[in-house]
């Protein structure tokens, strides 16, 4: 079992790794992209110039080759361009990398002072070439005599394109290994004491193999180190972890309630209709499952809103809120909320908002699961050991509850286990219809807004959860069913 678990764990990591590659390639190789819609505006004044586009590209990290971008997304970009890499295992330095102050901290858009000799030459684009002796990144205070002040436009390997303050001509600043750097400690913290050191400068350093791309512009630690990055569009500049944190609770409440309700109803109903096959209730259940599985949830949801919110209001009945997690204003007279004296944000308020999405989802799940439960039970009831149990003279109740049901419940493991990704990932359609501020709606919004980082993170979390669910299912099967064994 241990070796099996180890093997499965390695497989899991590989599958997740493959999934991340697929996710990244899918989102980054597809036509279009976040910058494609930039110049759609008809207003000439608000159009983006080529330089603006460059800066935006650098800011979003789109100027680097795909492989490097993927690596930066996965394991972070704080160490790319670092002369030395530190792998610590103790928090808060745990899994942090250390970069020697240098070009690695040169971020487009930030101020810079340069002390160096002007060669008097200009490059093809008319920029003044400066060989730097000392560079201050993100400086503060008064500049010393004779320094050039400016803003970093773009970083090219170990060279900088600087927009010089007050000068119409830009500067092309070349740095060498002898260049001295002054970077505030808040930007480049001192090297931690402990930990083994791995020098990756030969590859990712500014003078390394990938030197021309090796500058980094951010502090991202990468999704593999639980830094989800920042949103581009849904909540511009906000950490994705915050976005997720604000929505995960809502999704988990909705999904777990719906799952719980459906299981509580689907299991007994499925078993009962299998035991009493061809009874009236069985016909009712099979019809219900047919309707439930054919019913498009988006239409069902809309019809619920139509009846319980819109028509109930017209008819003067206590109507339900059409969507949302909580109400913003005190409820209007005549609604169910007003009837229950629910103040916005209170428990009752939340519970009432939960009614429609939960019942829509539950009906959907119930239809599928009771059918599943019924066929599983029918299969078990046909087996010889059930007949043996009956022949022994056991009461029907004991036969069904103690013998048949226990085995019929085993296939249910698959369903419950694969509900795990759903509980975190939410139900996109249901949440969209009832504007339930959960993960599903976040995913939908991120897709509509071309917010790739959010989409990628949500898919990545899903991939991990699916893999975990698969493993959990397999392990649970071995625990429940002694006939299944993994070696």
């Amino acid at each position, binding site marked *: 079992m241990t070796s099996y678990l180890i093997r499965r764990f390695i497989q899991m990591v590989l599958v997740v790794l493959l999934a991340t590659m697929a996710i990244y390639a*899918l*989102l980054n190789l597809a036509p279009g992209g976040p910058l494609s819609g930039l110049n759609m505006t008809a207003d000439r004044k608000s159009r983006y110039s080529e330089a603006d586009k460059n800066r935006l590209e650098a800011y979003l990290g789109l100027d680097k080759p795909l492989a490097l971008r993927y690596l930066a997304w996965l394991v972070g970009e704080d160490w790319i361009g670092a002369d030395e890499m530190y792998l610590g295992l103790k928090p808060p330095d745990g899994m942090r990398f250390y970069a020697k102050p240098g070009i690695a901290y040169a971020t487009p858009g930030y101020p810079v002072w340069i002390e160096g000799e002007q060669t008097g030459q200009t490059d093809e684009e008319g920029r003044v070439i400066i060989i730097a002796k000392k560079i201050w990144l993100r400086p503060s205070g008064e500049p010393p005599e004779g320094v050039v002040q400016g803003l970093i436009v773009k970083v090219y390997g170990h060279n900088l394109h600087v927009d010089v303050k007050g000068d119409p001509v830009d500067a092309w600043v070349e740095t060498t290994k002898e260049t001295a750097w002054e970077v505030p400690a808040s930007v480049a913290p001192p090297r931690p004491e402990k930990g083994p050191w791995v020098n990756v400068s030969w590859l990712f350093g500014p003078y390394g193999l990938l030197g021309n791309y090796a500058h980094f512009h951010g502090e991202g630690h990468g999704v593999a180190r639980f830094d989800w990055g920042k949103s581009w569009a849904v909540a511009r500049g906000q950490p994705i972890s915050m976005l997720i944190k604000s929505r995960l609770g809502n999704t988990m409440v909705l999904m777990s309630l719906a799952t719980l309700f459906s299981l509580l109803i689907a299991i007994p109903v499925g078993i009962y209709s299998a035991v009493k096959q061809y009874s009236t209730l069985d016909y009712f259940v099979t019809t219900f499952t047919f309707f439930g599985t*054919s019913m*498009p949830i988006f239409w069902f949801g809309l019809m619920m809103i139509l009846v319980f919110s819109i028509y109930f209001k017209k008819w003067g009945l206590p109507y339900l809120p059409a969507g949302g997690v909580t109400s913003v204003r005190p409820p209007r007279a005549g609604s169910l909320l007003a009837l229950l004296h629910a103040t916005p944000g209170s428990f009752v308020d939340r519970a009432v908002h939960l009614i429609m999405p939960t019942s829509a989802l539950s009906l959907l799940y119930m239809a599928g699961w009771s059918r599943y439960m019924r066929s599983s039970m029918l299969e078990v009831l046909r087996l010889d050991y059930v007949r043996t149990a009956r022949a022994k003279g056991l009461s029907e109740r004991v036969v069904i509850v103690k013998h048949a049901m226990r085995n019929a419940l085993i296939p249910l493991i698959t369903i419950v286990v*694969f509900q795990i990704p759903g509980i975190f990932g939410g139900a996109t359609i249901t949440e*969209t219809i009832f504007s339930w501020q959960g993960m599903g709606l976040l995913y939908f919004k991120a897709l509509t807004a071309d917010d790739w980082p959010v989409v990628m993170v949500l898919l990545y979390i*899903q991939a991990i959860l699916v893999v975990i669910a*698969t493993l959990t299912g397999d392990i649970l099967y071995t625990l429940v069913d002694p006939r299944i064994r993994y070696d």
Partner: protein
Amino acid sequence: MSEKNVKEPQVERLDAEGLLTTKKESQFSVVWKRFRRHKLALAGLVIIIIFVLMAIFANAIAPYDPITDQDPYNRNADPSPEHIMGTDEVGRDVFSRLLFAARISLSVALVVVLFSETIGALVGGVSGYFGGWVDMAIQRFVEFLMTLPLLPLLLAFSSLLQGIYIPHIPKEWTSVILISAILIIFGWMGSSRLVRGVVLSLRDLDFTEAARALGMSDLRIIVRHMIPNAMAPIIVDATLGLGGVIVLESALSFLGFGIQPPVPTWGNMLQAAQSGLLGNPVKVIYPGLAIFLTSLAFNYIGDGLRDALDPRLKL
């Protein structure tokens, strides 16, 4: 003793007659006889035939053009003799759009199911027939695809490929082809599983051995002997799949990631109706009901076919 000897030939002749009369019944009529017993499946079949006829003759039935006939002074109108289901948010006749949407939704479903069942049958056939590491690799891949959450993936794919340009195709039809392709890519796994199961049970039987001994190529054996034997489960799976694809396609179109307006589908009509939910709520009913009825009908037909083709079959 002697009496018995006389009677025997008569019995034989009677049997032969009986056998002859049963032989006349084709396999189709046997299936049809059993299918007819499933009343709900029959009702489903009637509904589907009506819908298909309406879709085919949409040109003749529809009083207006679904895209170009816009009446800007008569938007979101209530049902009237001119517009029996009213008009939509730009003044197009809802009934005409519903008919043409049936054409798109049904043909997308048909194309998707045809292709994905064919691909699934071939993959499943190869996987089951060759066995060994080929089977192993294919099955792991299929399992992986089947565990993936379908809807988020479909949404991601169609959202990312929306900007794509396909040459020689009118622009508004790009999304139709795109969505069909995406649904095919993620739709073949179920049938490959079914066919693999059948092929595994047939692979080592004598007739396969005989075909091999006669020098038939592996591919030919798979296509001529294996897949035809798996036809019953494939047909049932395809029928159920038709309903599933219609719901999936409408879900995508409803969320705005499927077939794009102005091409009408039930899904994007529902989406348009949803935005006017407060003003004109009844319009939500028609396209949704069409989706629901079609899907339900296909599900019942599938159920009936399962009973008719092979009562032991379970899906």
